[in-house]
């Protein structure tokens, strides 16, 4: 068994509207090891969300190859694609936009269990309660509407929904960026704990290098559709080789305790 769970090679994508063509991704290659986290970092418009969506097969690339656990992901369709989709889940930035606004916590969590035929109807309430406990929520929350719970609770439900299919990989696109800082830390700790206990790999997309550094084993820095630098997190942060990497390191706000004027 290879150490790599997912390898993307030479992935390109151009978006066209009227006369304008935008190269969102140009020959990007990244890999994610089993049970580890790849941090995708870059400024706005660098192509990190496009790459994340391609890994999820929500967007089809123009060129390139993606191997997921020894299978050519881009060649899959029909039943084989559905089976593989179970193993790759996602969590987005805005949990309110990621759910049916009329959903309850229970119905949001029942969907993946039903769609992928994982749990019989009669066993679902127990499975939902277990998922909620897994992400540190009170099972009593199940009957509440998604819009009634707090932003932090909602993002925990989004993580629980992603966990429902027992995935090997979760792609998180700015998953903590909209949260209050005091909530953010606890969600990051939850992600790390789930990874340690269940061996899930993450692709963690963020513009915030400090947050990525806290949870990613390796980092890929993107700019203008290309991967400009990759490496183990401590190396990239301590000694960035690219101009974009250096700019991202310099842009992290530091707590200035002894300011003198």
């Amino acid at each position, binding site marked *: 068994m290879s*150490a790599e769970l997912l390898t993307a090679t030479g992935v390109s994508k151009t978006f066209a509207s009227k006369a304008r063509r935008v190269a969102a991704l140009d020959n990007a290659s990244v890999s994610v*090891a089993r049970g*580890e*986290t790849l941090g995708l970092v870059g*400024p*706005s*418009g660098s192509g990190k969300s496009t790459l994340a969506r391609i890994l999820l097969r929500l967007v089809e690339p123009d060129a390139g190859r993606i191997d997921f656990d020894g299978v050519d992901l881009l060649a899959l369709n029909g039943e084989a694609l559905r089976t593989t989709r179970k193993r790759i889940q996602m969590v987005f930035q805005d949990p309110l936009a990621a759910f049916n606004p009329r959903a309850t916590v229970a119905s949001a969590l029942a969907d993946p269990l039903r769609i992928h035929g994982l749990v019989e109807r009669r066993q679902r309430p127990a499975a939902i309660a277990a998922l909620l406990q897994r992400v540190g929520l009170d099972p009593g929350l199940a009957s509440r509407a998604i819009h009634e719970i707090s*932003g932090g609770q909602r993002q925990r439900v989004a993580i629980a929904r992603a966990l429902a299919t027992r995935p090997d990989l979760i792609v998180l696109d700015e998953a903590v960026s909209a949260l*209050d*800082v*005091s909530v*953010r*830390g606890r969600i*990051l*700790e939850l992600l*790390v704990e789930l*990874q340690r206990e269940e061996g899930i790999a993450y692709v963690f997309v963020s*513009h*915030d*290098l*400090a*947050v990525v*550094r*806290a*949870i*990613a*084993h*390796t980092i890929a820095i993107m700019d203008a559709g290309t991967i400009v630098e990759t490496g*183990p*997190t*401590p190396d990239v*942060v301590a000694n960035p080789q690219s101009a974009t990497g250096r*700019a*991202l*390191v*310099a*842009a*992290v*706000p*530091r*707590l*200035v*305790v*002894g*300011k*003198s*004027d």
Partner: protein
Amino acid sequence: MSMQLATLRDLSVLYRSGSTTRTALASVDLDILAGERLAIIGESGSGKSTLALALAGLLPDNAERSGQIAWPGLGRPPVPGGDIGFVFQDPGSSHNPVLSIGEQIAEVARRHLGIGWRAAYARALDLLARVRIPQPKAALAAYAHELSGGQRQRVAIASAIAAGPRLLIADEPTSALDMVVQAEIVALLDELVRADGMTLLFITHDIALASGFADRLAVFRDARLVEAGASADVLARPQNAYTRHLIGSHIDLATPPLIVGPTR
């Protein structure tokens, strides 16, 4: 002791909708000193944006204000847009989509400074150069949708300072921007208020971002001011448990990682 530009005494704001009311600010006492850079720190629901709206006279119709806001530094009630400039979080929605960048900035100068269009356009061109928009002359004729988020925020700053306000309020001006652009915008705001002797009220959820340049910090939580003081004092010796919690929640490149290093 610096002179007070504004003093807030027992300031409370309630929002009514139907039969329910929500307290957005409860009995806030705070001085804003002339020429200082004051950061208002708070998370969602802390009341920090309501404070900014109350100061600028921009509270919505369903808001009820009590308590006093006095302006000893002006000696008269402030003129919104003239004495107070406002930069909002979302640079996309603070521009009129059908006016050129030049018209928007010139309009502010013309209205508040009583100058003609020609002089107002000359000022707009100056301001675009000051906020470091590339090719400021061409930008005069551009529309907001043609600019990136960071450039739009630079233009919003140019509009906000076009009338030469005493107080510049920036409400989460960088939260919709990436970190590299955030650092540039914060440096720009700091430079502009220093050069023009403006007072800056910088509203943010990020205590570390504020720590880099603010003279004083005021920490809000659940509609209340929990702590205010010189930045160095608040950061080195936070008196309130919540302030300590905010400082402890900060993640930067010196924070111990949550994971052990790569296994390969």
